[in-house]
């Protein structure tokens, strides 16, 4: 009963025409969405690009920074590919069309070409604007703009390929090592070896400084784009329906949550996959030999949204009645619970330590630069990566059969694992310290970030007062307020650090210390508020 691709295309086209004609969503609504996206891109994107041109213009003369930017962009797309790759569809498309009798590629006929074109075009546009010479009278301006566009297109298609690889198999992440090694080799003496300009897409920007390389760079871009096009078709044809369905379902849930500005749930839905590592932990060694209920022992650890799973939970529940009465016993039990979850999600812990090491290193070594603001963000994001146990504790407070006692001590005990991870990160990061005061300030920033995990975890839904519309001449601004609320602890820490830089070095740690104390009070108040709302 299988059919040819041509017949499949005809049937799918006919079905899609029917869907368009009968959809209750009017075309004008879709047109409005496109109009809004284009306008937002033009109004906010173009000024940002032009404003960044001065800073990035130097990149045209320094391809080294472009190599790093290219690798970072590709890494980000690779990670994103694990949650939502280029062959992501809606659940309905997967169950109704892709489960149909026509070859899948008949449904996604134009999509791979369109995606390749979009990535290359956006990259070329950004490259032409950002990498073009700042001074128009420059005689090489024409060549530079073409070189910039080519470099940008190369970056774009490279990012698309990374996105495809991220969706295909996470093990392709191992390619990072040779990629970094080749890049390091190519730029070993601070310039860029000519061969690398064609071999490594990000280095095409080097064509800015050598017009003779434009033609080979263009040829390489075409080959790379053709590879990206073919890879998308192969990936779609070779991915099992179950995987497509799971990804589609995850994305649908994330989109629904994001539409209501529930960014936390949206982010959780995108990352919500069962950990594959260490599923069979030697729990008796980790947690002692307290008895476990048989049912819980036999049940597989399937709780995707719980960092540890049922078996560890059952064992800790057995010990918690005693633990709730004693501070150290509670700390041990909660720490063990979080550790088991952390080991199963060890990439999160590794990322947390790495981000905190990087962030604290920058804070300690270069506290006066704009980079330090990004470093504060790295520290806060890093701390939150290790706080899965605290999140689970806060979200399940008040539910029957909850594994943790609803005690403030339990909340603080859940900070122990992130603190241990942060300590490892700090030990690495502070090797780059530029002085005692800076190191102390960096340590206090990390401590404050850990304390602020509690209010961020407890108050994970915006207050109702923020959810109402805020009418302004520019439209409804409520989304801005809600987003600011989501990142309120980050903003608090960023503002603290920014203010600290206005003070003399010995006074900086004092200001951060004050912020830490405010954070402790904030955490205490959040707990009381949450307990009242649960009781009410």
């Amino acid at each position, binding site marked *: *009963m*299988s*059919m040819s691709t041509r017949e*499949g295309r005809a*049937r*799918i086209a*006919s*079905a899609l025409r*029917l*869907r368009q004609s*009968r*959809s*209750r*969503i009017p075309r004008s609504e879709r047109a409005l969405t496109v109009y809004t996206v284009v306008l937002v891109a033009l109004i906010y994107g173009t000024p940002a690009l032009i404003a960044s041109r001065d800073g990035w213009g130097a990149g045209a003369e320094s391809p080294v920074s472009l190599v790093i930017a290219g690798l970072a962009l590709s890494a980000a797309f690779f990670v994103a590919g694990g949650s939502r790759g280029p062959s992501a569809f*809606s*659940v*309905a*498309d*997967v*169950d*109704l*069309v892709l*489960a*149909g*009798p*026509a*070859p*899948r590629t008949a449904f996604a006929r134009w999509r791979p070409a369109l995606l390749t074109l979009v990535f290359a075009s956006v990259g070329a546009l950004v490259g032409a604007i950002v990498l073009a010479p700042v001074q128009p009278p420059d005689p090489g301006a024409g060549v530079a703009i073409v070189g910039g566009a080519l470099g940008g297109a190369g970056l774009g298609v490279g990012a698309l390929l990374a996105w495809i690889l991220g969706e295909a198999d996470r093990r392709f992440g191992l390619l990072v090592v040779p990629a970094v090694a080749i890049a390091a080799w190519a730029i070993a003496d601070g310039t860029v070896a000519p061969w690398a300009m064609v071999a490594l897409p990000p280095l095409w920007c080097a064509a800015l400084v050598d017009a003779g390389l434009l033609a080979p760079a263009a040829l390489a871009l075409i080959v790379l784009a053709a590879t990206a096009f073919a890879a998308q078709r192969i990936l779609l*044809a*070779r*991915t*099992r*329906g*179950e995987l497509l*369905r799971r990804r*589609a379902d995850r994305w649908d849930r994330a989109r629904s949550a994001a539409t209501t500005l529930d960014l936390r749930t949206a982010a959780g839905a995108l990352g919500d996959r069962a950990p594959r590592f260490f*599923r*069979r932990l030697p729990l008796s060694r980790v947690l002692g030999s307290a008895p476990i209920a048989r049912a819980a022992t*036999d*049940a*597989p*650890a*399937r709780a995707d949204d719980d960092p540890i799973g049922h078996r560890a939970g059952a064992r800790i529940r057995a010990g918690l009645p005693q633990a709730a009465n004693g501070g150290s016993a509670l700390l041990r039990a909660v720490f063990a619970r979080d550790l088991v979850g952390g080991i199963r999600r060890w990439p999160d812990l590794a990322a947390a330590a790495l981000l905190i090491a990087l962030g604290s290193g920058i804070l300690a070594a270069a506290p006066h630069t704009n980079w330090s603001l990004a470093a504060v963000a790295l520290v806060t994001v890093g701390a939150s990566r290790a706080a899965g146990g605290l999140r689970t504790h806060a979200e399940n407070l008040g539910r029957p059969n909850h594994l943790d006692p609803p005690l403030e001590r339990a909340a603080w005990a859940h900070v122990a694992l992130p603190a241990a991870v942060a300590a490892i990160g700090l030990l690495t990061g502070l090797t780059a310290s530029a002085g005692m005061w800076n190191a102390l300030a960096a340590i206090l920033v990390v401590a404050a970030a850990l304390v602020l995990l509690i209010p961020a975890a407890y108050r994970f839904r915006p207050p109702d007062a923020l959810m109402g519309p805020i009418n302004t001449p520019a439209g409804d601004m409520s989304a801005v307020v809600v987003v600011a609320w989501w990142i309120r602890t980050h903003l608090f820490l960023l503002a603290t650090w920014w203010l600290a830089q206005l003070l003399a070095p010995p006074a900086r740690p004092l200001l951060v210390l004050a912020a830490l104390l405010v954070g402790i009070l904030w955490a205490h108040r959040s707990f009381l508020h949450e307990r009242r709302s649960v009781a009410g």
Partner: protein
Amino acid sequence: MAAVEVNTVSWVVDGAAILAETSFSVAEGSATALVGPNGSGKTTLLRMVCGRLSPSSGSVTVFGREPDDRDASFRADLSELLGAPGYYDDLTLGDHLDFLGRLWNVSDTHAELERLGALHLATRYIDEMSSGQRQLAFLALALTRPSRLLVLDEPEQRLDASYREALGEILAARRDEGSSILIATHDDALRERIADRVVTLEEGA
């Protein structure tokens, strides 16, 4: 050739047997019912037959080949209802059936809905239906597309007695027309009405 051949298949997670070792076959043009308590692995087994899951041990074949939903000809042979499928929230149930009709080249797209006695649902949007009506809608979608093998997981759930009766008649007619049916069910009447053979699964763990 058997429509479905299950040979010493099991499914084990972390040492716990979700599906104990099982063997059976479904002859072409016959109906087989899987019965057993909750947790005995009925749905797991159906997912394997549909190519959604690979067994820990043993093998499954559907019309002589390994289930693989990446293969268009495999998809063309099989229609399944394992839980709620995806649907477009901007189309009515009738629109969905017409949509499937164009994909599968079916002219009388509302016939199965009518046989179920639920033609009145054709103008309703699926996300505005009750859970029982949704089940009827999903059944209509699964039955409308032509197939050599029907795989249904507890299709009777949330249906009242009259709809269960109608479902039994439709499935029996399908079987008599030569379709093969593999169904997991807790409904004794439905099982007796359509099943040529009953396979009982014991609790996996």
